[in-house]
């Protein structure tokens, strides 16, 4: 039996207000094996840690139980503290009496009883703990960034600048992402492409950055420091090394009626195309689904007109396998589909548009060359209504439960730009709340109201009714005047909710990164580790983690880069010592454990054993510690119990069960 010390944290009043910590100490002292128990205000503080260290030294403790917050919070803190006092760090166990007890129970008696049981379970476990030693694994000094929008570009640039090679994988033919579709940016109203394009150029020109555009991540294996990734480079049908980007092929392509993704379907493009003028790389791709040559075998115009001879109809998808030490996810967002919002007549009228469509309309390179006009008849609108929170803050399944965060600001921007350029146009904004936290944000919104005369009405729109005369009848509520408003508008702009790129779920699964019900990637800690995934070596950049605007995205991109650089700067990583272990005397060599091992960490060898006097050669399962991640799938598959998991052994878990069921 170990000599165990129990340390009960008050966590200020977080624990002590609901759990009688003195009682927990008293009960701990009554437990067999417990030779020391004390409580303290903040165990995680310097003084608290010293208390633990002193007790380890003075009482010669072999095991430590800290009754405190979640082990996900301070397990490492206490383990490090114990190590400094000469105790193996894995002889420390945490009883989570905050998140799992004091914070969720109100009754002191009940909470104290539960805290005592959790303490006992931890004591029972630590009694069976064995000293463990972390192994080492190497770090591949190369990073992968998934997604080539502003988030991915910024992250890649920062990592590259620190001297590490980094690859960007971008699904579309060009990097640039959502930001390249924007006309102006708030709150300074600079031109989006004017600030983005230089960054795109930097990224493509940087010696440490490799761009894989029109490419997708196909398979990820390995673990922090040593990921192996398969990247599918889709066939571009254009030889990148030969293409000069002259654009003749696009001019001559006879297939011209394909809705442009970049212009949100408001204009057309050709089958061989670059998505937009500033695209990087400036090499077109052939959209094989719409190309006449691929559909019928006849045509080949682009090949004929290409001076450089860059067109290659036989190009095949290529799989590139590369090793990475860190992976940054920057998969961005899209607008939600509005098919569940019939009341706003989005599908009935061309003049009901989303804000991103308005961005394209306002953009000089857009479908209307920057002229504000109705898509139905090309006429200049006189009355424009903006509707906020379309699909955001929604409790039912039509929309999203969260606030999309950027809409208030871009709507103020749109309203202001319209009023600035077309002073005769009336702009009305129906809003629920105007949310403008951010530097110079509220001032920006106030300018829209005060200087530009945008009419903000507190209240939501109930429905939009297309009229026979081409107008749109907007029925809304004014909650300040307490009246219902009927307004004829020429154009209605919907601030549709944003949602993570739908591909992110697939990517998260490959990366084993956790993801929430809204498809946003989960961060390791909401406050303290906001740019890391709980999966080691995976970092989050941009909207894939949660709604955010450009400045926030760029700062998070930098933060993710720093985290990745911090990882790449290490030569070796300590591995989790809680790995599976095979008992050679019990192993049957039946291969079942190898079947369920997700890491291929189990192999078999013919080994001479001495089983209590029986000497024979047996087929024995062997675990590769460097590959094993400690999930424990093998331990349950193994009928004889030969496979056990260090740190979470059968007997340890059973001891916890026993203590809880006592």
């Amino acid at each position: 039996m170990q000599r165990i010390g129990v340390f009960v944290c008050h966590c200020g009043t977080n624990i002590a207000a609901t759990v009688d910590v003195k009682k927990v100490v008293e009960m701990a002292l009554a437990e067999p094996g417990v030779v020391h128990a004390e409580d303290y205000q903040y165990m995680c503080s310097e003084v608290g840690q010293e208390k633990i260290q002193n007790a380890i030294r003075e009482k010669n403790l072999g095991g430590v139980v800290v009754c405190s917050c979640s082990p996900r919070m301070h397990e490492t803190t206490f383990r490090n503290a114990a190590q400094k006092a000469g105790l193996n760090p894995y002889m420390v166990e945490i009883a989570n009496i905050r998140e799992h007890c004091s914070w969720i129970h109100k009754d002191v008696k009940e909470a104290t009883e539960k805290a005592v049981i959790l303490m006992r379970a931890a004591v029972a476990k630590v009694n069976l703990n064995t000293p463990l030693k972390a192994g080492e694994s190497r770090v591949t000094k190369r990073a992968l960034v998934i997604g080539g929008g502003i988030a991915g570009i910024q992250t890649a640039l920062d990592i590259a600048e620190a001297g590490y090679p980094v690859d960007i994988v971008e699904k579309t033919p060009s990097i640039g992402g959502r930001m390249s579709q924007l006309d102006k940016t708030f709150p300074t109203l600079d031109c989006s492409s004017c600030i983005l394009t230089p960054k795109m150029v930097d990224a493509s020109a940087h010696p440490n950055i490799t761009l894989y555009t029109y490419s997708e991540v196909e398979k990820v294996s390995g673990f922090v420091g040593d990921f192996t990734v398969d990247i599918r480079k889709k066939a571009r049908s254009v030889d990148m090394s030969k293409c000069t980007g002259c654009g003749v092929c696009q001019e001559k392509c006879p297939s011209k009626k394909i809705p442009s993704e970049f212009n949100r379907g408001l204009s057309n493009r050709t089958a061989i195309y670059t998505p937009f003028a500033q695209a990087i790389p400036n090499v077109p791709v052939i959209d094989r689904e719409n190309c006449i040559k691929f559909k019928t075998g006849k045509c080949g115009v682009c090949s004929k007109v290409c001076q450089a001879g860059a067109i290659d109809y036989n190009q095949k998808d290529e799989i590139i396998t590369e090793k990475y030490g860190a992976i940054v996810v920057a998969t961005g967002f899209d607008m939600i589909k509005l098919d569940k919002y019939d009341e706003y007549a989005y599908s009935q009228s061309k003049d009901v548009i989303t804000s991103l469509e308005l961005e394209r309309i306002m953009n000089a390179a857009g479908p209307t060359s920057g002229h504000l006009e109705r898509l139905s008849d090309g006429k200049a609108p006189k009355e424009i209504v903006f509707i906020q929170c379309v699909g955001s803050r929604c409790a039912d399944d039509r929309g999203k439960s969260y606030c999309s965060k950027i809409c208030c600001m871009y709507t103020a921007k749109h309203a202001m730009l319209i009023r600035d350029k077309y002073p005769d146009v009336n702009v009305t904004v129906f809003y629920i709340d105007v949310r403008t936290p951010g530097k110079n944000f509220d001032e920006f919104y106030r300018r829209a109201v005060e200087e530009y005369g945008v009419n903000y009405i507190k209240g939501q729109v109930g429905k939009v009714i297309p009229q026979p005369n081409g107008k749109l009848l907007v029925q809304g509520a004014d909650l300040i005047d307490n009246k219902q408003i009927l307004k004829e508008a020429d154009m209605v702009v919907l601030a549709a909710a944003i949602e993570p790129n739908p591909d992110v779920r697939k990517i998260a699964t490959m990366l084993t990164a956790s993801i929430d019900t809204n498809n946003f990637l989960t961060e390791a800690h909401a406050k303290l580790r906001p740019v890391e995934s709980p999966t080691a070596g995976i970092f989050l950049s941009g909207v894939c983690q949660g709604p955010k605007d450009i400045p926030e995205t760029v700062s998070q991109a930098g933060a993710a880069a720093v985290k990745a650089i911090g990882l790449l700067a290490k030569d070796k990583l300590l591995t989790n010592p809680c790995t599976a272990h095979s008992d050679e005397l019990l192993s049957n060599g039946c291969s079942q454990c190898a079947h369920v091992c997700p890491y291929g960490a189990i192999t078999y060898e013919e080994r001479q054993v001495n089983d209590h006097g029986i000497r024979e050669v047996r087929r024995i399962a062997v675990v590769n510690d460097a590959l094993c991640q400690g999930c424990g799938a093998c331990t349950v598959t193994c009928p004889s119990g030969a496979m056990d998991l260090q740190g979470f052994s059968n007997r340890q878990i059973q001891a916890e069960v026993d203590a809880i069921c006592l």
Partner: protein
Amino acid sequence: MSIEAKEEFRPKIVAFCCNWCSYAGADLAGSSRLAYPADVKIIRVPCSCRVNPMFILRAFERGADGVILCGCHPGDCHYTSGNYYARRRMTLLFSMLDFIGVENGRTRVEWVSAAEGVKFSTTMREFVDKIRSLGKNVRLEDLRCRN
């Protein structure tokens, strides 16, 4: 007739939670102050696939009234496939317990992500209610372990 109030049945419930999703979900329930009955005690395991049917039977043997296993949602396992194996194992185990006449509902599997504090809390409340309605586990307990 007894004048004493009948003592309320407080079930013993063991919740196995995987470290990456459900344990974090339970932490989130805690930091969001989403209360659930104190009858639930959580054991942290690396993955739902670490939970051996023997642990579950052991809990019942020792007088547990309900056992719930929480893991990452299928497809989201930190170890890619652990919860898929757990799902098959638990399905078969539960089916066997049902077959030998153990009350349905004493065991449960629920997928709770790190972001689902609310789900964790409501799941636990539901489960405790269910176990309270089933009453004490007498079909699997080992009498020697009784108090």
